[in-house]
C-alpha cells in the first residue's frame, strides 16, 4: 500500500487515473479508516486530498459559498457567516459523530461514502447544492442529488473526485433546516432524516420549496410532491398536513433493528413538519 498527498488537483487526478490497483481518496478518513480496519475496501494507494491547494477553504463565490472538499465539520461550524446563511446545512454536518469526528469529517466524504443515512446529504439536496467534480476530462458541476447511486455507490467515474461543494446565494427571505431521528441525542446514525428549504415573497407566501429525506430509501429522496404541497401557501396547518402525507408517501424505507417500515414512514412526516416550521421561522418575516 502507498500513501500520497499531492498538492494540486491535476496531480491528484493523474495519480487517481494512473495508479495501479485501487486508489482511495482520504478526506477526514472517518469512514475510510473504519472500513479499512474491517478489511474492506481493498486499497493499493491512499490519496490524501488535504494538502491540495484551496481544498481546505470556504470562499465566497458568485454570492454563494464554495466549500473545499477537505473542510472539516468543525471548520464549517465555526464560520459564522456561512452558519447565518445556511444553518440547516451546517447543523446537518455538525450532527455527524462527536467533537473528535467533527475535527476530521468532511461534507464531501459524507456524500461520497454514499450511506443512505448520511446526515449532510438531505440538507445539501434541499439547499440545491452543486458538486464540483474534477477528473481526466476536466471539471464538471453536478447537482448533489446525482452523486449517490445507492448504498456505498456513487456516479463518479474512474479518475474523478469531488473538489468542492457549492451552496447557492441565499435569496431574500429563505431558510433551511435539518432534523434527524436517533434513539439518543448524540453519536448515532439517523433512523430518518429530513431537510427543508423554503423561500417566501414579501407577503409571506411560500414561492419555492425543496424537501429531502434521508435513511428512508437506498439513496436520498427529493420529495417533489411534498414541496408542491407548500408552494403558494403560508405554511399553515392544511399545507403542513399535506406535507406530512406527501413525505410519508415518498418514504421507501427498509425495516431493520433501528426502525420498522411503519415507524420510519410516520417519522418522515413528523420531521418534515417540524423542519418546515424551523425553516419558515429562519426565513423570517413569514412567521
Amino acid at each position, binding site marked *: 500500500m502507498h500513501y500520497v498527498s499531492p498538492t494540486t488537483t491535476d496531480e491528484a487526478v493523474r495519480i487517481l487515473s494512473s495508479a495501479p490497483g485501487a486508489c482511495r481518496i482520504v478526506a477526514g*478518513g472517518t469512514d475510510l479508516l473504519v472500513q479499512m480496519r474491517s478489511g474492506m475496501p481493498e486499497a493499493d494507494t491512499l490519496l490524501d486530498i488535504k494538502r491540495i491547494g484551496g481544498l481546505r477553504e470556504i470562499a465566497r463565490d458568485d454570492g454563494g459559498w464554495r466549500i473545499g472538499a477537505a473542510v472539516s465539520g468543525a471548520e464549517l461550524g465555526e464560520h459564522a457567516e456561512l452558519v447565518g446563511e445556511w444553518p440547516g446545512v451546517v447543523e446537518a454536518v455538525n450532527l455527524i459523530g462527536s467533537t473528535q469526528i467533527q475535527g476530521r469529517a468532511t461534507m464531501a466524504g459524507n456524500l461520497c461514502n454514499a450511506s443512505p443515512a448520511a446526515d449532510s446529504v438531505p440538507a445539501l439536496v434541499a439547499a440545491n447544492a452543486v458538486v464540483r467534480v474534477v477528473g481526466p476530462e476536466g471539471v464538471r458541476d453536478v447537482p448533489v442529488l446525482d452523486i449517490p447511486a445507492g448504498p456505498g455507490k456513487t456516479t463518479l467515474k474512474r479518475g474523478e473526485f469531488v473538489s468542492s461543494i457549492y451552496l447557492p446565494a441565499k435569496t431574500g427571505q429563505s431558510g433551511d433546516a435539518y432534523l434527524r431521528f436517533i434513539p439518543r441525542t448524540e453519536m448515532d446514525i439517523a433512523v430518518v432524516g429530513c431537510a427543508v428549504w423554503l423561500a417566501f415573497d414579501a407577503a409571506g407566501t411560500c414561492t419555492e420549496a425543496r424537501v429531502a429525506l434521508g435513511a428512508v430509501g437506498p439513496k436520498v429522496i427529493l420529495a417533489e410532491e411534498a414541496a408542491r404541497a407548500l408552494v403558494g401557501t403560508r405554511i399553515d396547518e392544511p399545507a403542513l398536513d399535506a406535507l406530512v402525507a406527501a413525505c410519508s408517501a415518498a418514504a421507501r424505507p427498509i425495516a431493520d433493528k433501528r426502525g420498522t417500515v411503519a415507524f420510519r414512514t410516520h417519522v418522515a412526516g413528523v420531521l418534515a413538519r417540524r423542519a418546515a416550521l424551523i425553516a419558515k421561522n429562519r426565513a423570517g418575516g413569514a412567521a
Partner: protein
Amino acid sequence: MSRIHVTTTINGEAAEFLCDAGETLLDVLRDRLGLTGSKEGCGTGDCGACSVVLDGRLVCACLVLGAEAEGRTVGTIEGMTTGEALHPLQRKFLEHAALQCGICTPGFLVAAKALLERTPDPTEEEARYWLAGNLCRCTGYDKIIRAVLDAAAEMREAH
C-alpha cells in the same frame, strides 16, 4: 514495501518515525514511539480513548494515518504536565475520583483540555456534549463532569 519517513512535532518536540501507509497515528504513537498514554478502546472512532490534538483540533488518533502527521503538530496526554506538577484537570480527576480502571482517562483529559482552551466557562450541557465521543464503562460520567467543571472554575480563578 518501503516505509514512509515522517517528520513531525509531538508535544512541542521534533520527532520522526517510519511507518506503513495504512498504519494509524495511534499505532505509531504506541508501538513505534512508546507513547502508550493514548489508548485503543475500539479503533473505530467510537470511544475517544485515543484522543489527541492534531494541528489544534481534537481528533481520534485511530482514524488518522501516521503518514498524515508529516509537518504537523501532535499533542498527546504525555504533553499534559509541565514538569512534575499535574495539570488542574488531572488533579481534579483524582480529587473527584473521576476514574476507576483508567482506560478512558487519557482521552477524557485531552478532550477536556481542548474544551477548556476554547470555552473556559462551559455549562454542564456544553461539557457533556463536547465529551459525548468519550466513553467510560466505569464511572457513570457524573464524576468526570464534576471534575471538569471544577477544574474549569479553578483555572479561571488562576487567571
